[in-house]
């Protein structure tokens, strides 16, 4: 469904060149929950943002269901973006709108009639269990509730793909699991392909069917999540696993017992 080939991106800063992505090749199947894990600055955000062209790559090709993303003109790009939902670490809800109007926002952009918007928004609010908060403003919500609104908003247009940029990194472990459960649910019920980037191994373990490990702009390991955990090859992944098990041994971390 999503094919990335030879993707590269260099940022030119006043202090010199920063290679954010180097010859990335990835293929993501329809219906998958695909995790991309790496340490801070590895290029995760840059990669996921190339998928809906919030970032323009220097070279390489991205196709979504055969459609070459980088050759789209503005209009077609906007049309494609409506079928690719995105959720963010900082939620990015609009403070000027209620929960209801935030979720209806993408439909409003599309000039969907008010009555249809109402039906659709109510349906999604029900799915994310926020019906009672429909008239609240974002500032009146907890982080977990905000992210539910973010997810609801991303689903409003019935997308085929959901991009998640550290969607749970600002949340406590319990809330994280409830959001991950919701994502799993969405993936199964609505058959939406999810691309999820994170620096939390737990998240990968919990919901990703396939995973790629990114290090300094390069994919250094990829495959079925289970296989990667049993036999990690890259230094980065070994480090991640080591850190996690150290935490658990020392008893500093107790939220992940069940998995």
């Amino acid at each position: 469904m999503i094919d990335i080939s030879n993707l590269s991106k260099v940022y030119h800063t006043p202090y010199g060149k920063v290679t954010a992505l180097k010859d990335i090749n990835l293929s993501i199947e329809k219906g998958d929950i695909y995790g991309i894990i790496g340490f801070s600055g590895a290029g995760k955000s840059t990669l996921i943002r190339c998928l809906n062209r919030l970032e323009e790559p220097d070279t390489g090709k991205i196709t979504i269901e055969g459609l070459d993303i980088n050759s789209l003109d503005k209009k077609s790009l906007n049309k494609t973006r409506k079928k690719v939902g995105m959720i963010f670490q900082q939620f990015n809800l609009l403070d000027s709108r209620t929960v209801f109007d935030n979720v209806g926002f993408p439909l409003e952009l599309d000039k969907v009639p008010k009555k249809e918007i109402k039906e659709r928004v109510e349906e999604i609010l029900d799915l994310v269990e926020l019906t009672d908060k429909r008239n609240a403003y974002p500032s009146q919500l907890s982080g977990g509730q905000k992210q539910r609104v973010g997810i609801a908003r991303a689903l409003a247009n019935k997308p085929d793909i959901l991009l998640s940029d550290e969607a749970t990194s600002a949340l406590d472990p319990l809330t994280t699991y409830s959001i991950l459960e919701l994502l799993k649910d969405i993936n199964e019920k609505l058959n939406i392909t999810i691309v999820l980037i994170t620096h939390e191994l737990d998240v990968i373990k919990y919901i990703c069917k396939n995973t790629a490990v990114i290090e300094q702009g390069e994919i250094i390991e990829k495959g079925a999540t289970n296989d990667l955990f049993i036999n990690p090859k890259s230094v980065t992944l070994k480090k991640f696993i080591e850190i996690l098990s150290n935490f658990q041994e020392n008893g500093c971390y107790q939220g992940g017992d069940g998995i």
Partner: protein
Amino acid sequence: MSDDLIELLLVGLGQTIYMMAATAIVSFILGFPLGIIMAITDKGNIWSHIKVNKTLGTIINIIRSVPEIILIVILIPFTRLIMGTSLGTTATIVPLSVGAAPYLARIIENSLREVDKGKIEAALSMGANQFQIVTKVIIPEALPSLIRGLTLGLISIIGLTAIAGATGAGGLGSYAIRFGYQRYRTDVLIGTVVLIILLVQGIQYFGDSLAKYINRKRYKYE
């Protein structure tokens, strides 16, 4: 206190409010689009046009660095061209607006720039076009800050009308100088000052209340 005091002050107040309102409207019509363009044409923004941004920015800076009193003098031919005369309360609206518009544009630009980039990116990711981002994201999100900024702008415009008054444009400033200063009418001087203070306070109060009302709605806790 003389009998004509009340009448003098009321006429002066009327002229001041007239100049202020007309200047506010004209300079808002000019300054608002200018402020929006400045905010979205800068590097990394949704309609990045560095040259447009730099050119407009330079023009704004040049006008803003000319003191209003000199602007009034320089613009006499231009004012005459538009209004048929360069004298009087109505004619003064031209140089006042030219002076106030770039100032409002900067205030508006600053408010709009404060909107979190993340919100704009979220809208982009939903396929919003630039017009939709300006009208449905940037302006509504910046509204409380915009109102506070415009209140500040309106109060500065009162200051400008007083300066224009010194050149014979009418208004409270003009009465303060012609009667209060030149004819030693202390009652007129005090009266004009009191009225200007009340006017400024009133506008500030109104602007603050409006901004607070919006903020309370958005950020109140149930």
